[in-house]
C-alpha cells in the first residue's frame, strides 16, 4: 500500500459530526475525479455502513475509565484507492470476549454466496433470521453485498481484555456489466 493511494486517514474519537464531514469530503473527492457513478455510489454506501458501524459501537461503550491503558473509544478510519479497488478500513478496540461472536458472523458472511447474502439480509431485516442484535448485523451484510468481495478482518491482541479489530471492505473500480 503506497501512501499516495490514501484518500483519507483518521485516528481519534469518532463523533457523528466527524462521520458527516468525512462522508462529505470523500464524496466531493469522488465527484471531482469523475469516478464511475455506480462505483461512486457503492463506495459511498460501503463507507456509510463502515463508519456508522464504528460510530455506533463506540457510542454504546460506557465512558472510558481513566485508568484504562487502552483508549477504547478511539478508532482508525482509512479510505484509499488502488488500481482495481477502493478500500475502506476501520479499526477499533473490542473486548476479547466479543471476538468469537464477531468472527463467526464475519465468517458466515464471507462463506455466503450472493444469493445467500440476499436471503440473510432479508432474514435479518424482517427479524426472522438468526439472533442478531439491532441493525449492526445488517450493516455487515450490506457491506458484503455492495462490496461483492470477501471482507478482510483481523483481531490483534492488545492485552488480556482487549484486541484491536480491523475490518477491510473493498469495492471494485471496474463496474460489472
Amino acid at each position, binding site marked *: 500500500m503506497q501512501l499516495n493511494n490514501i484518500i483519507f486517514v483518521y485516528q481519534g474519537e469518532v463523533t*457523528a459530526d466527524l*462521520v*458527516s464531514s468525512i*462522508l*462529505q469530503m470523500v464524496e466531493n473527492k469522488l465527484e471531482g475525479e469523475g469516478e464511475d*457513478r*455506480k462505483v461512486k*455510489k*457503492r463506495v*459511498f*454506501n460501503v463507507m*456509510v*455502513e463502515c463508519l*456508522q458501524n464504528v*460510530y*455506533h459501537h463506540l457510542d454504546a461503550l460506557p465512558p472510558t475509565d481513566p485508568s484504562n491503558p487502552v483508549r477504547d473509544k478511539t478508532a482508525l478510519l482509512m479510505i484509499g484507492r488502488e488500481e482495481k479497488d477502493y478500500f475502506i478500513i476501520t479499526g477499533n478496540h473490542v473486548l476479547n470476549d466479543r471476538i468469537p461472536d464477531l468472527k463467526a458472523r464475519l465468517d458466515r458472511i464471507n462463506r455466503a454466496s450472493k444469493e445467500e447474502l*440476499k436471503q440473510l*439480509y*432479508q432474514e435479518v*431485516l*424482517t427479524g426472522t433470521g438468526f439472533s442478531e442484535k439491532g*441493525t449492526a448485523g*445488517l*450493516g455487515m451484510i*450490506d457491506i458484503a453485498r*455492495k462490496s461483492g468481495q470477501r471482507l478482510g478482518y483481523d483481531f490483534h491482541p492488545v492485552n488480556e481484555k482487549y484486541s484491536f479489530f480491523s475490518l477491510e471492505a473493498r469495492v471494485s473500480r471496474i463496474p460489472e456489466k
Partner: protein
Amino acid sequence: MRNLVIEPTSKTPKVILNADLGIFEITGRSIPEDAIGFYRKVLDWIEEYSKNPLPETAFKFHLEYFNTSSSKCLLDIFRKLERMHKNGHKVVIRWHYDADDEDMAETGQDYQALLDVPFELVPV
C-alpha cells in the same frame, strides 16, 4: 389532518405527507445515525392517516442512498401501508430509482418480495 413536511439535510430525505393534495413522498438520501428518531414522526403520521385515508394512496419513494438503519424504518412504513391495503384501502407504493442504479432496483425488488401490497418499480 395536519400535513407533515420535513426539509432535506445532507443525511435525511425530504418528506411530504399531504392528505389535502394526496401527496405522499420521501425523496433524497437517508443516512442518519439515528434513523428511528428521524422516522418516528413519519410513522406516527401514517398511523394517524391510516385511520381515515383518502380513497387512493400512492406513496412515492425516490432514494439516492439509504443506510441499513433506514432500511428497517422503510420496512416499518411499508408494513403500515400494507396493513391499509389489507384493510381494503387502495394503496400503491411506487419505488423510483435512477435507471442505471441496479443496486437500488434490486433493493426495491427485495422489498417487493417481502410485502403483500401493490409495489411498483419505476425506473426514471
